[in-house]
């Protein structure tokens, strides 16, 4: 990104300043505008200081843009200590002249009395002095609420003065970020309504308790003079990284569609799918418990490894030991594949972390292991721990990630009823996956059979019949189609009901 010293204002195009939170920058069309003031509001503990510090840290480390941190709450030493865990060495930057502090934390060394009218020229000249001393391009004021607590009395004076400071800093072509506290997650935007006076842009950080889970989100409420994506994007706070947001609906559908086919691990299913799965597609296997979903997953992994591919499995239902035993029961040796570095099996409790963290775990391990195929068993286990919207967001991010990496994905979902029926996860994911394979118990007279059908195969012909299959020590065997078509979609067959 380049800066033009002249005509920044007349050009009408706002230079964008990247925050270091990639998914957030996408929401605001590339970053926060230069020479504008952004107010970041949030309840205590919502991550305001981390977000603000990351904004400075990213400028310093990635763009050579130095920064000023004006702190109203904690003294600089405390902030340096607190931010070290996120991998930011503020003290070193301060010594190198890349970061300057303005310490406006409550002073223990003086008693103060405020009478009548005053201005904040002292603060402004200190900020400008600090900005000059390190040639800063970014300024953070954290948090304005403490300033209001300091100058109790007439808030009108403070609003006027904050407006003055904001204008002066904008005139110096600085990207200004101010944090402010909120009383509640959904209500007044900030205490003292200061965003009305100083903010060109308003961003809200939330930390909501929902169904006994903490859910952090970031929302762009207002961007003066430019577009932004609407809605709350989930984020998480990570060691050595800071704020990591999860890209959502803003994600463009830019993935290339490949017509390269890869094996499902079962020749008959490959045939039913018109020659196998597509390489960069996500397939859903849906069925009641015991219908053979994990077997399909095992075949999928083993089939890839047999072709010289690398495969990774994220298991959320069964332990490693159990998965290995299952596999060897079907003649597949997971241990040997792992020893050869061709397979990686990761088993996690769904409840161990929130969905955004699960997503980051998957992304991190996939990028580390570089597999050609990935399996997730099962989505239903993950759905248990998330609110509905959170799960949908997770699925969108997961499927687009898999496609972006151009690897083949296989996910499983458990239907709630034994015969037919759709679960919520199926409804969500059916529109997001490229292919769907249904496994069903089908009753024929007095016997229960297993049936398999390919419900959907994006961009390809596929077999329409429902095939019988059996499972034995050698795996899955597909047989003849059912002659009298049963209804696999509803619980129980309507034709058999009266």
């Amino acid at each position, binding site marked *: 990104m380049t800066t033009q010293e002249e005509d920044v204002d007349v050009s009408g195009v706002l230079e964008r300043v990247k925050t270091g939170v990639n998914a957030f920058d996408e929401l605001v069309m590339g970053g926060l505008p230069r020479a504008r003031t952004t107010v970041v509001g949030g309840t205590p503990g919502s991550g305001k200081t981390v977000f603000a510090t990351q904004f400075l840290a990213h400028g310093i480390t990635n763009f050579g843009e130095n920064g000023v941190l004006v702190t109203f709450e904690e003294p600089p030493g405390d902030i340096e200590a607190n931010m070290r865990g996120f991998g930011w060495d503020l003290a070193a930057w301060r010594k190198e002249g890349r970061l300057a502090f*303005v*310490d*406006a934390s409550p*002073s223990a*060394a*003086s*008693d*103060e*009395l*405020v*009478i*009548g*009218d*005053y*201005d*904040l*020229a*002292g*603060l402004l*000249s*200190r900020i*400008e*002095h*600090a900005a000059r001393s390190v040639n800063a391009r970014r300024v953070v004021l954290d948090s304005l609420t403490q*300033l209001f607590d*300091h*100058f109790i009395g007439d808030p009108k004076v403070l609003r006027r003065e904050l407006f003055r400071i904001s204008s002066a800093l904008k005139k110096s072509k600085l990207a200004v970020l101010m944090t402010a506290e909120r009383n509640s997650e959904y209500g007044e935007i900030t205490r003292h309504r200061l965003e009305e006076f100083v903010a060109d842009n308003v961003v809200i950080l939330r930390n909501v308790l929902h169904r006994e889970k903490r859910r952090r989100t970031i929302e762009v409420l207002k961007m003066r003079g430019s577009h932004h994506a609407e809605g709350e994007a989930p984020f998480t706070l990570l060691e050595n990284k800071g704020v990591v947001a999860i890209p959502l609906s803003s994600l463009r559908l830019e993935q290339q569609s490949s017509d390269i086919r890869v094996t499902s691990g079962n020749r008959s299913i490959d045939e039913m799918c018109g020659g196998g799965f597509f390489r960069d597609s996500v397939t859903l296997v849906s069925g009641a418990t015991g219908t053979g979903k994990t077997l399909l997953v095992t075949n999928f992994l083993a089939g890839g490894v047999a072709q010289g591919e690398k495969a990774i499995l994220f298991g959320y239902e069964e332990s490693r030991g159990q998965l290995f035993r299952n596999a060897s029961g079907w003649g597949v040796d997971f241990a040997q594949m792992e020893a050869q570095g061709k397979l990686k099996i990761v088993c996690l409790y769904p409840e161990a972390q929130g969905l955004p963290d699960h997503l980051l775990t998957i992304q991190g391990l996939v990028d580390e292991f570089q597999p050609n195929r990935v399996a997730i068993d099962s989505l239903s286990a993950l759905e248990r721990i998330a609110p509905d919207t959170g799960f949908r967001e997770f699925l969108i991010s997961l499927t687009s990630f898999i496609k972006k990496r151009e690897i083949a994905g296989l996910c499983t979902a458990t239907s709630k009823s034994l015969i037919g029926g759709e679960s919520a996860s199926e409804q969500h994911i059916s529109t997001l996956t490229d292919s769907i394979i249904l496994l069903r118990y089908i009753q024929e007279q007095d016997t229960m059979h297993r049936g398999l059908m390919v419900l959907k195969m994006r961009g390809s012909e596929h077999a329409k019949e429902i095939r019988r299959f059996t499972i034995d020590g050698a795996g899955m065997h597909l047989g003849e189609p059912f002659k009298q078509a049963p209804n696999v979609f509803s619980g129980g067959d309507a034709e058999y009901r009266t």
Partner: protein
Amino acid sequence: MPAVNEPVLRLYVAGTSATARRAEKQFADIRTHISDEWKVEVIDVVERPDLAERAGILATPTLSFDRAERSRRIVGDLGDTNKVLEFLGIKAKGDPE
């Protein structure tokens, strides 16, 4: 500059604004009520942001009574001399001990 622990009255103002001029006038008036022995300084925070930083000044005008013990500061209107001196804990000329 006076030694660190020597008591001194410092007035912080910003530039030559009307507020700054009024504060300087009020400060001059206060000085007529106290001993001539007092060390005083007037600091323009626009000229000397470094001194404002060191003293932790946010608002102007600020009248700061700096001494070995805790500093005392008055921000804003310094028009009421008695109130100012009382808060700072400074004796007016002619007051009984």
